[in-house]
């Protein structure tokens, strides 16, 4: 079967703006790329495998007797296909990527090299433990650093991403409460929280109630205190919070929560602002996930994979998930340092390792090993001094942006003091009909990735700018210059902003159409027609 013998199918109609048209639809380095299903063929392949005769006698009569419809490409075609696609993406490697709450910092290439060492990349998760001592040591060394940097007692390494880490933390809390016979139904979440917080609490079986923010963008301590009662299991707090502000009353919040018999979960998405400056353990936090793909520079990869280890207080650590790595002292050895061995504690030996109260397994294997090697490489590169400098530079860069723009853009919390690693603005003062999205799309034309838009929900038309520490002053100055001009245009009612972006590979896309008539897979033209 050949999927589409006619090959390339132009999708670009004539441009109405009088731009010179090309026959191909390409514009020099801006290259259009058809779908794989329009260029590939099921007879084409980019690998050299021989035909092998299969008798079929051992397939239980289940031999496939229909075509699958998977087109192939030769290697040069495949490389060109994805390389052309890659060029339609913005990326940190190309420029400033100030997405608030996402910590889009430079991804060091040494991390990539290390993750590909055969002893890490080419090791099976079920290999006997004596053959993976180095891998277990990596997990253990990373765990050590995370505990030292957070001042916490234990760490669960297996969660696969931030939201998975949140779930891990809440399950630890629930298990700890149930172990003391204390069933509680409610988790309190501030209004400004990331959407994963309430979703996770619901996923863990809790009813979610929101707690209001005060005028300074912080948790309203009195409102929180008045809601604390024996039905509250936990309070989920993001600190620094999603307005880019540190919660100055964090210690008092933790004390109030503990007094009510509940636990404090901290969303560690914004740990980059305080790494090496503040240890969450000193703030009374009981559980916090750490996004290795934010603070510790593992690549975001277009939306994952992430990694979300969870640091735990002494009260919660015994309930953490399996499997985990334990360092075994080796009394019989005389060789001193480096003689200890590492053991993976799984279901069968959890009891003997004093971990009988673990709430169980969250994922098939031991977590995101490829992210652990990258994060540890990053941490060792920076060391204690470099990591502290990371937080300081990240905060300095954000404040520099805040103070350079507060005269042209509404900055709702600017008067209350400095921000942490991200600066928040609103679209207050824009001319009628123009909003945050118009400024964001105009930034695309200027060659920048937009900031986080319309989040947190507590600020109208929020723009959350997180430059990170890996931006130079020159890069920030360029960004600020573009932002100032666009902000002035938005305030003056420049309607042309609504057409932005005009220089990107695509103009604004019709998201309503995509949701109303979902097309989620490719169908051959005749099939698609028949379906209509």
């Amino acid at each position, binding site marked *: 079967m050949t999927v589409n013998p006619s090959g390339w199918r132009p999708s670009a109609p004539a441009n109405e703006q009088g731009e010179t048209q090309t026959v191909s639809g390409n514009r020099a380095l801006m290259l259009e790329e058809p779908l794989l299903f329009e260029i590939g063929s099921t007879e084409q392949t980019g690998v050299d495998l021989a035909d092998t005769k299969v008798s079929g006698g051992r397939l239980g009569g289940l031999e496939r007797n229909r075509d699958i419809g998977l087109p192939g490409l030769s290697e040069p075609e495949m490389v060109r296909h994805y390389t052309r696609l890659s060029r339609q993406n913005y990326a940190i490697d190309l420029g400033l990527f100030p997405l608030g709450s996402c910590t889009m910092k430079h991804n060091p290439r040494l991390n990539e090299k290390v993750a590909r060492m055969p002893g890490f990349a080419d090791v099976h998760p079920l290999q006997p433990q004596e053959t993976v001592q180095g891998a277990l040591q990596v997990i253990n060394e990373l765990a050590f650093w995370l505990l030292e940097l957070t001042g916490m007692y234990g760490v669960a390494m297996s969660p696969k991403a931030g939201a998975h880490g949140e779930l891990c933390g809440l399950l630890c809390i629930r298990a700890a409460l149930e172990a003391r016979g204390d069933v509680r139904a409610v988790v309190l979440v501030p209004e400004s929280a990331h959407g994963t917080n*309430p979703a996770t609490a619901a996923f863990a079986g809790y009813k979610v109630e929101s707690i209001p923010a005060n005028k300074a963008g912080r948790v309203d301590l009195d409102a929180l205190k008045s809601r604390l009662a024996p039905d509250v299991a936990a309070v989920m707090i993001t600190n620094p919070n999603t307005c880019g502000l540190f919660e100055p009353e964090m210690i008092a919040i933790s004390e109030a929560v503990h007094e009510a018999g509940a636990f404090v979960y901290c969303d560690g998405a914004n740990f980059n602002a305080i790494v090496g400056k503040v240890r969450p353990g000193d703030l009374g936090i009981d559980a916090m996930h750490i996004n290795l793909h934010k603070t510790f520079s593992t690549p975001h990869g277009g939306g994952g994979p992430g990694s979300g280890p969870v640091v735990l207080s002494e009260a919660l650590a015994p309930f953490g998930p399996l499997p985990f790595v334990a360092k075994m002292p080796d009394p019989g050895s005389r060789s001193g340092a480096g003689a200890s061995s590492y053991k993976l504690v799984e279901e069968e030996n959890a009891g003997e390792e004093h971990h009988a109260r673990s709430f169980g397994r969250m994922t098939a294997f031991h977590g995101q090993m490829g992210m652990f090697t990258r994060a540890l490489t990053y941490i060792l590169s920076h060391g204690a001094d470099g990591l502290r400098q990371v937080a300081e530079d990240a905060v300095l860069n954000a404040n520099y942006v805040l103070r350079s723009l507060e005269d042209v853009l509404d900055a709702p919390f600017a008067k209350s003091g400095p921000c942490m690693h991200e600066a928040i603005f609103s679209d207050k003062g824009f001319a009628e009909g123009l909003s945050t999205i118009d400024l964001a799309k105009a930034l695309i034309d200027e060659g920048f990735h937009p900031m986080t838009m319309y989040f947190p929900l507590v600020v109208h038309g929020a723009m959350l700018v997180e430059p990170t520490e890996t931006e130079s002053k020159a890069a920030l100055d360029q960004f600020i210059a573009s932002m100032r001009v666009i902000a002035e245009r938005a305030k003056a009612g420049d309607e042309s902003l609504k057409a932005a972006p005009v220089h990107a590979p695509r103009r604004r896309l019709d998201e309503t159409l995509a949701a109303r008539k979902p097309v989620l897979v490719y169908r051959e033209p005749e099939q698609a027609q028949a379906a209509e």
Partner: protein
Amino acid sequence: MRYLPLSDTDRSEMLHAVGASSIDDLFADVPKAARLDGLVEGLPLHASELAVERHMGALSKKNMAAGDVPFFLGCGAYRHHVPASVDHIIQRGEFLTSYTPYQPEIAQGTLQMLFEFQTQVARLFGCDIANASMYDGSTACWEAILMAGRITRREKAILSSGLHPHYVSVCTTMAKFTGDRLETRVPSLSAEMDAEKVIAAIDDQTSAVVVQYPDILGRITDLAPIAEVAHAKGALLIAVVTEPVALGLIKSPGEMGADIVVGEGQSIGVGLQFGGPYVGLFACNEKFVRQMPGRLAGETVDAEGKRGFVLTLSTREQHIRREKATSNICTSSVLCALAFTAHLTLLGEKGLRQLASLNHARACAVADRLAAIPGVSVANGAFFNEFTVKLPVEARPAVHAMVEKGLLGGVSLGRLYPDAPELANGLVIAVTETVTDEDIGALEAALKEVCL
């Protein structure tokens, strides 16, 4: 510090510009009691690229890399040859260092790639649609059970005995908290699967039946009879595929009536990586789309009418629906999905079929040779590239004894089912195209010795 571009001059200029006399002014909101005045004690300082590479390299060498020895492990993670161009593509900075495509005008590369990935997964699994990936196979499996609960409004799922025990463990852990009821079973070391028991257990309380295909012992069974009974009772069939290469040779679960098909995509493009990151595959019947978890890329047009792609149906998701979302998932596994889709594009249907045939033929040859060892028998009737042998001795010590001989000879059922002594002599052996004739000879010789 090589990753920090600000110079001390920049820093003092910028502090001046923001009206701060020192960096500590910017941390004024941090309670004094919690502020660290100096470095966290007892930690090393920054290190050169050379020094870090040396340290990590030494740790890497303390592991036995699969490529250095005869290697026969499977059970949910498979070692296949990944063409060099796949790794080249995923290291393109525009893919590696981009974010979730929230700004579609400058993320068409990722979005189109995900649309292609969704199409490939849907076709491979024999389903209408697929999502843009989950964390891994085990979490996808649990999400499928939850989804079936939402669709059927029932809370009891039946897990067949052939489901990977770690997947079962993930599901039972999560079910403790959600209140879902799960029926689980331990497999028997024989060709006999539990399709009949599973069918008998389906009642009008059952939300879903979960069957792995091929199963943890490598066995394969026709899913159609299970689907038929499940549907008659208003339940759904969830199929779990941990070795998608198999589908180049055997029927897809969708074709046999599975309503939701989830899987682990690791074996195509991703590599072993000691368990992660992997890529969860999730496909289903189109009518269930609004109950599906995870990101979805969809086709649309831009303001000029040009075809383009966006993330769509996000009203299911946490950032819009908050506590009412179908899942709390936010990050998926896009870079691994890219590795999967790039590898599958190189293979194409022809290459996948060739690869699957090669795997199966080699596995058959190895099974025959091992069955000829006195005391050793093959438990499976049917299998793809993985089968279980019954040894005359316990398999777990046998695996360690083979390590002593420099050989990774399989996964013992003792490791997977420590509480089931009746399985202790079972050894699961996976045979892929990476296994050489010398490797097979070494396995045969080693097994002969440990079985004496």
